[in-house]
């Protein structure tokens, strides 16, 4: 199996209005593949189609067109769901149950015997950082962050091979986020594929191997995160750091290089050039002015810049 998740030309239309029904395309011809064992970041602004995609994969909605498979099985295959987990956005559970009862109930749905259920339930509630004294409280008395932790725990009850997480950090405090980050990283170490949608870009940068960015239901960009950050036009720019020379000393000499920008630094200057072919000239000017080359590296845009660029077009 080459891909853990394979989405082909997936589209989803919603009908709006009461009398005059109007069709709105929430997802437009999405094609996407996720390799096994990686953490895949699914990005996009509000209403971009992230949750629609995940809901369609979870068979909560039926696609208007296209197909999708998880672990090589069509998404309509109920038995395939034995091998996957899902943590919905702002998870809602039976609030008359306690966390332990909910976990036991979900364990029962996977056919585990009482002893296994009990052990899994205790291990997972501990792993997501819920204190034992809270396990016997009804979920209606839980805070948003605590519900989020229960949501994560229940999504792992069956040791899934692929787990889908829709905004898994939502409602968590900084410590909680760090703990969940570690939990997700731990899943990758175990070989679990994680398909994660989030708005928190630092989490994506810290965790994800590959990402896809959605814009208005369409795929705007996808691929290896580091490669994406280097891909754009801006990323062909180079930054040359030189010591022992002042900005004023070389400003006039490099004026003829189109697009070059000089910025003073505490012990020298930083020169940014747009084209690699100008590098030799910059190095020569720096050397002739008595400067010492410290580093030359490509200018990497931040994920935030990439996100803004791809989501706003």
């Amino acid at each position, binding site marked *: 199996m080459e891909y853990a998740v394979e989405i082909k030309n997936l589209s989803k239309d*919603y009908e709006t209005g009461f009398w005059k029904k109007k069709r709105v395309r929430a997802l437009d011809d999405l094609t996407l593949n996720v390799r096994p064992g990686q953490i895949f970041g699914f990005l996009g602004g509000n209403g971009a189609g992230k949750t629609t995609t995940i*809901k369609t994969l*979870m*068979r*909560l*909605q*039926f696609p208007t067109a296209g197909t999708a498979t998880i672990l090589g099985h069509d998404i309509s295959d*109920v*038995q*395939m*769901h*034995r091998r*996957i*987990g*899902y943590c*919905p956005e702002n*998870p*809602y*559970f*039976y*609030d*008359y*149950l306690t966390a332990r009862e909910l976990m036991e*109930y*979900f364990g*029962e*749905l*996977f*056919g585990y015997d009482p002893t296994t259920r009990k052990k899994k339930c205790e291990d997972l509630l501990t792993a997501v950082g819920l204190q034992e004294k809270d396990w016997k409280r009804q979920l209606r008395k839980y805070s948003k962050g605590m519900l989020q932790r229960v*949501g994560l725990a*229940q*999504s792992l009850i*069956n040791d899934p091979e692929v787990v*889908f997480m829709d905004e898994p950090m939502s409602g968590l405090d900084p410590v909680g986020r760090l703990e969940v980050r570690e939990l997700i990283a731990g899943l990758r170490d175990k070989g679990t594929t994680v398909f994660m949608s989030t708005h928190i870009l630092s989490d994506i940068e810290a965790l994800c191997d590959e990402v896809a960015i959605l814009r208005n239901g369409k795929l705007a960009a996808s691929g290896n995160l580091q490669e994406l950050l280097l891909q754009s036009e801006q990323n062909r720019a180079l930054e040359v750091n030189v010591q022992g020379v002042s900005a004023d000393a070389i400003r006039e000499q490099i004026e003829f290089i189109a697009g070059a920008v000089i910025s003073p630094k505490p012990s020298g200057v930083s020169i940014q050039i747009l084209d690699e072919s100008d590098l030799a000239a910059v190095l020569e000017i720096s050397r002739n002015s008595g400067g010492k080359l410290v580093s030359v590296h490509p200018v990497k845009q931040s994920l935030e810049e990439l996100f803004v660029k791809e989501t706003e077009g």
Partner: protein
Amino acid sequence: MNVLSIAKNAFREAVRDRILYNLILFVLLITASAIFLGELTAGQEARVIVNLGLSSVLLFGAFIAIFVGVSLVWKEIEKRTVYSIFAKPIGRGEFIVGKYLGLCSTLLLNVLVMGIGVTLALVYVGGSAMIAGLWGAVFLIFLELTVVTAVAIMFSSFSTPALSALLTFFVFLIGHFSASLLDLATSMGSKAAIGFFTFIYYLLPNLSNFSFITNSANGQSPPAALLGGAFVYAVVYDIILITITVAIFSRRNFK
């Protein structure tokens, strides 16, 4: 197996939502009847207790079947609890059948406890001879409630709870007078009217098949053929309604 787990949880939900609190009201009603009716209905205490008791079992049960039945599935969609359920290896059919059986178990417990209450009241007023007939009628009421529940769930699979409750109430009402529909049809002049009322007669459940309250109050016990026929009728009707519900629910998108 999954159906049983879902049914068990639906039962637990009904209990925790204090649905069974209606039993307290019922016990008070029956106790008061047993104590005070002797003074009001000279020599007819047992008959009145059976009449009042069984009518209450039916009305309390119908109330639960309609109002809990219509919100059973709707609440899961509104509260988005279905999201976590359908991400697990649960078919939509299993879910509907499980929820239905869960509410039927609640109703069964309800009618059993109420039946015991009426039995104790009967013993208190010296009407033990009527107990067999009473339990036959209780069984028929339970069968009727399973049909009402199936109707409520079916309506709620495509409509709002308020409208579903109203429609189910109409079915409950018309179902008790469906024999009159045939009489009405035959007394009509136009063929269209005859056709319409005959169609309604066959479409809606004939709930008078389960009516044995008056007979039970007169000391009669339902014959086995009546019980067997009503059982088969209820099971067939329930299966048809639940199949329709599953067919509708299986096509639903959860936004």
